[in-house]
């Protein structure tokens, strides 16, 4: 199994997809942090003080948690990393040599899940480092560097966990759908259209907290939102989704013909 995990890492690091996604994630996070900091304390009307609807002011506890949770906004790129990791085998038809080398196909999927979960940890740490670094510089320029302690650290860790779990969900989703474009488009439409709508409709909004997006929000949100699970419950639910995707993906990969 170690050999298979290492083979997956060789696959990942011999193309440049990982670099593009990681850089993209870092740029997005840096941009969001700068944006949040620039508009911190402003209200929709343009006044100061951070009333509801606006962003909290620099130096407040809410601002620091909001800005340090930015990493959770790029989970989608980590989802895509996982999806590509699995679906590239089908897209470029390397599934054939892969499954010829390891005819027990479940082992391939498990190795991929492990390899991507493990690789997502340093990737997430890079994103978190960029997140904190840019926040420290940007907020520092406005007079208050966020402390790296207590609740703030917890917020960062939650984002990191979300990034890793979304990578695993991506691998599982890729094994289920197999078509790269289909899996990515499907994942995006689900996260940004389906869940957004469920979240809006009050009659079914209760269901939202049980969905992956709701679980992510419960784990990482720092602003007042809809009715959500507790933070650790959200984290567990998200992990559960990751495992279910992984399990279904493994079972299907084992049963279906490789075409």
């Amino acid at each position: 199994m170690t050999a298979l995990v290492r083979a997956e890492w060789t696959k990942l690091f011999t193309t440049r997809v990982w670099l593009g996604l990681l850089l993209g994630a870092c740029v997005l996070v840096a941009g969001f942090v700068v944006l949040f900091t620039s508009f911190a304390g402003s209200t929709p009307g343009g006044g100061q003080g951070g009333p509801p609807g606006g962003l909290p002011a620099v130096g407040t506890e809410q601002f620091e948690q909001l800005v340090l949770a930015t990493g959770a906004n790029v989970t989608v790129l980590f989802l895509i990393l996982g999806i590509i990791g699995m679906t590239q085998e089908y897209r470029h038809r390397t599934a054939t040599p892969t499954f010829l080398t390891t005819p027990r196909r479940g082992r391939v999927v498990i190795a991929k899940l492990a390899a991507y979960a493990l690789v997502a940890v340093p990737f997430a740490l890079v994103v978190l480092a960029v997140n904190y670094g840019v926040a420290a510089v940007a907020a520092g320029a406005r007079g208050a560097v966020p402390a790296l302690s207590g609740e703030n650290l917890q917020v960062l860790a939650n984002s990191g966990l979300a990034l890793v779990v979304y990578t695993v969900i991506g691998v599982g989703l890729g094994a289920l759908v197999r078509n790269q474009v289909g899996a990515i488009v499907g994942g995006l439409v689900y996260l940004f259209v389906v869940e957004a709508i469920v979240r809006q409709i009050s009659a079914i909004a209760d269901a939202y907290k049980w969905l992956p997006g709701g679980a992510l929000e419960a784990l990482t949100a720092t602003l007042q939102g809809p009715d959500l699970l507790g933070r650790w419950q959200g984290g567990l639910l998200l992990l559960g989704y990751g495992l279910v995707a992984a399990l279904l993906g493994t079972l299907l990969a084992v049963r279906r013909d490789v075409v």
Partner: protein
Amino acid sequence: MEPSPGPREESAIDSGSSPHRRPVRVEVHGLSKSFGAVRAVDDLSFTVEPGSITGFLGPNGAGKTTTLRMALGLEQPDAGTATFDGTPYPDLPSPVRTVGAVLETAFHPARSGRNHLRVYCRAAGLPVSRADEVLSQVGLADAGRRRAGGYSLGMRQRLALATALLGDPAVLVLDEPANGLDPEGIHWLRGFLRQLAHTEGRTVLVSSHLLAEMEQTADRVVIVGAGRLVREGSITELRSGAQGSGAVLVRSPEAGRLTEVLGAAGFTVAPSEDGRVTVTGTTPDAVGAQAFRAGVELHELRAETSGLEELYFRLTAGQEQYAAAEGSRR
């Protein structure tokens, strides 16, 4: 990510010919698979012997690729088995060291050929140095560090072959390996396969839809049509069985008299203008002998289609209609 052959890697394997390689016989027994109403492979059985090249011959759509993919555990047969020395492919203790297969010539376009091979070295627990060894074995040493996306079709075939050779396997299964090769590449492949089978004693199974190619390469052929076995045997057996079923082209200044003489002797003769006569269902030898006895001058005498080719056409003709009729009957 530079590899270091750690202690976990299994024992290094001999490159090149190893006299200790255990010969492995491939046995396909009663394989069947349907896609909807179409019976792609229908109760197919044959064996492939070590130390020889077996051609797996049939027109496009005859079920060759499906058969090979089932034998290698990539597709699930509806019935039947394929075994390598008695063991199904997925149950082999180390599959790539027993069987090497070329089924796809597609690669991740951004990955170099060498890195592609290293991935499978890793996955199979082989030392990564095997990647360079097989690259030079197939003549790709110089292109190994280039992106596979820029490879020509012939280079892809060679890279696919290199992938199959990584584990120094006793059996090689190749699906249409001559596709995309230029004449020089085909000549190289022929010599390479002969060396693998005849010199090194490996079991080689090569699929093709081209009889001419197989006639020059294979020792034995397994001919399939519409998913069924139509003929199995050595090239020599088939050739002698097909004796006298070809077409012979004769050119003579006395075409009229030749037509009469041959017709009287019971040959099927079709004369045309410009002194050419086509005789079907016989051999150049028989026609030559008859003309000599009658004292007819000949300027040209040759087999237009070999008996084997004629036999192949006959065996595999109209398979599509056959398959459709089969389907509608069910």
